[in-house]
C-alpha cells in the first residue's frame, strides 16, 4: 500500500481504524416476528482501506451499512467510526452513503446535485460550487454541469453520485451495490474509475456487491458472509499491487486465483 492513510484528520485520531465493529448483532422485528439478521460481526477497517462485503441475498450486508450509518442502532455490540459512535459520526458528516440508485434529484442540474451535501452543511455558495466543479472534473463529467440528471446515461449518473458522495471529504464511504444496476461493460469501467478516484482520496471504503470479480478487483480484503443470521465466514486478502491493472484481460488473469478463493468460501 503506497497510499498514506489519513492526511486530512480533523477529528482527533485516537484510533488507526476507520471503522470498528465489535460483536455486532441485529434482530429485526418484522410484523411481530423476530428476524435474526446479523450475529457476532467483528470487523475492523483500517484507514484508507477498501473492504468489500459479499454474501447471499438477505445475509445482512445492507444492514451492516445501515447500522454504521446510524439509520438504526445495533441490537447488540458496538460500532465505532474513527472512534466515534455512528450518531456522532453522522452529525459531523464523517461518512457518506451511496446507494444502488444514484438518487439524483431531477429538479436539480448535475452541479447542484453534487453541491447538495455542502448546501446542507451550509457552506458558502462560492465554496460549494468550486468544490462541486472540481469533483465533476475528477469523475470526468466536466461539461455536463448544467445538464439535468435524466439527460445522462446510467453510468454518468452513478459517477455524479460518486462525486456527490465525495463532496464533504468523508473519511469513510459506504457503498451499497452502487454499480449493480449497470451493464457488465459499464460496471467494469466504473470499477476502474472508482479505484482511480479513491486513490485520489484518503477515504476508507466499505463496499457491498454480488459480483465476485468486482469484489476482488476493488478490494484489499473481501469479507464473505453466511446465510441468515449473517456471520462472517471468511476474509480473503487481496494482495495485488495498486494501482490495479487497467487492462481488462490482464485484470481478469490477476484476479482469477482470488476469485476462486472467494467462490470456494461462498459455497463451502
Amino acid at each position, binding site marked *: 500500500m503506497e497510499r498514506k492513510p489519513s492526511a486530512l484528520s480533523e477529528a482527533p485520531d485516537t484510533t488507526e481504524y476507520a471503522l470498528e465493529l465489535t460483536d455486532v448483532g441485529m434482530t429485526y422485528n418484522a410484523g411481530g416476528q423476530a428476524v435474526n439478521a446479523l450475529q457476532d460481526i467483528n470487523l475492523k477497517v483500517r484507514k484508507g482501506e477498501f473492504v468489500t462485503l459479499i454474501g447471499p441475498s438477505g445475509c445482512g450486508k445492507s444492514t451492516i451499512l445501515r447500522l454504521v450509518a446510524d439509520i438504526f442502532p445495533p441490537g447488540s455490540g458496538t460500532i465505532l467510526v474513527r472512534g466515534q459512535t455512528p450518531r456522532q459520526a*453522522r452529525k459531523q458528516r464523517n461518512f457518506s*452513503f451511496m*446507494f444502488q440508485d444514484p438518487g439524483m*434529484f*431531477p429538479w436539480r442540474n448535475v452541479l447542484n446535485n453534487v453541491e447538495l451535501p455542502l448546501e*446542507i452543511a451550509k457552506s458558502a455558495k462560492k465554496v460549494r460550487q468550486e468544490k462541486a466543479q472540481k469533483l465533476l472534473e475528477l469523475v470526468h463529467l466536466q461539461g455536463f454541469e448544467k445538464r439535468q440528471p435524466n439527460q*445522462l446515461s446510467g*453510468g454518468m449518473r452513478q459517477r455524479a453520485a460518486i462525486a456527490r458522495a465525495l463532496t464533504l471529504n468523508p473519511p469513510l464511504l459506504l457503498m451499497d451495490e452502487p454499480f449493480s444496476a449497470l451493464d457488465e461493460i459499464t460496471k467494469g469501467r466504473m470499477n476502474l474509475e472508482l479505484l482511480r478516484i479513491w486513490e485520489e482520496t484518503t477515504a476508507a471504503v466499505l463496499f457491498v456487491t454480488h459480483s465476485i470479480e468486482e469484489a476482488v478487483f476493488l478490494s484489499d480484503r473481501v469479507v464473505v458472509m453466511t446465510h441468515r443470521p449473517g456471520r462472517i465466514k471468511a476474509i480473503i486478502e487481496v494482495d495485488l499491487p495498486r494501482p490495479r491493472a487497467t487492462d481488462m484481460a490482464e485484470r481478469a488473469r490477476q484476479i482469477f*486465483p482470488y476469485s476462486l478463493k472467494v467462490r470456494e468460501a461462498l459455497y463451502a
Partner: protein
Amino acid sequence: MLKENTLVIEQAAEVKVTYFAVEDKVNEGETSPPRRRNWLKHLRGYMLSMSVIVGILVVWEVFEIIMAVPTYVLPRPSVIGETMVKNFDLLLRNFGVTALEAGLGFMLGNSVAILIAILFVHSPSMERALFPVAITIRSMPIVALAPLFLLWFGTGITPKVIIAALSAFFPTLVNAVRGFNSVDKSNLEMMYTLAASRWQIFTKLRWPAALPYIFAALKISTAACVIGALVAEWIGSDRGLGYLVVVSTFEFKIELLWATIAVTSLFTTLLFQLVGWIERWAIPWNRNAGQVE
C-alpha cells in the same frame, strides 16, 4: 490451485478470435444538446383542439337547422353566441362575481389543504387523528351544506368562498400527502446520513417531489371551485353566474341559460389552462422527464 488456474487460461487461448482494425476512441455519453421547445408544435396542438371544438359546433348548428329543433329545446351555437354578445354587460358583471368567489375559494381551499398535508407528513399521529375528519367533511353533500353556510355567514361572498374552498380541499389534501410521501426511501436516507434538518428535508426533497402531484390536484380543483361557487349562488344569491342560471331558467330565457353555461365552461377552461401554464413554469423538470419525441 495455481496449476488449475494456468490450465483454464491455456484453454482460453485456443479459442479462435479474429480482431478487426478499429479506431481506439472512447467518446462516452456525448449527447446532443437538449432540443429547444418548439412553440410552433405547441401552437399546432392548440389549433388541433380548437378545430375539434369548432367542428363540434358546426355539426351541432347544421344538425339543428336540418332537424328544425326549437330553441327552447336546444338553441343553436350561433343563437347562444348572439345572446352572449347581446348580454355582454350582464354576463361580464356576474362572471366577475363568480370568478372572485371561485378564485378566492381556490386559493383558500388549496392552501389549507397543502398546509394540513404538511402537518400530516410530519406527524403521523396527527394524520391518524384528523384524516377521518377530513373524510367525514368530504362525504357530506355540499348541496345540503350550502343553505347552512348561508344561514351562518349571510348572503354575501363568504359562504360562496367557503363552499368553493371545501370543493377544492379534499383532492388536494389527498394528492399533496401522496406527493410529500412519494420520495424515495434511499433519498430520505441519504438526507438523513447528511444530517439534514427536517426543514431542509422538506424544502430540498419533499416539496419539489410533491409539486407534480400538487399541480395535478390544483388542475382538478379548478373545475370543483367553479362548480362550488355556482352551487352556492344557486341556493342563495342575487348575483353571479349561478344566480343567472336560476333566473334565466325561472324566466324561461333558455338562450341566456345557455350563454351562462358557455361563459362558465369558458372560465373553467381558462382557469385550468392558467394552472397548466404555471405548472410548466414551476416544474420544468417534470416536462423533460417523460418526454418521448
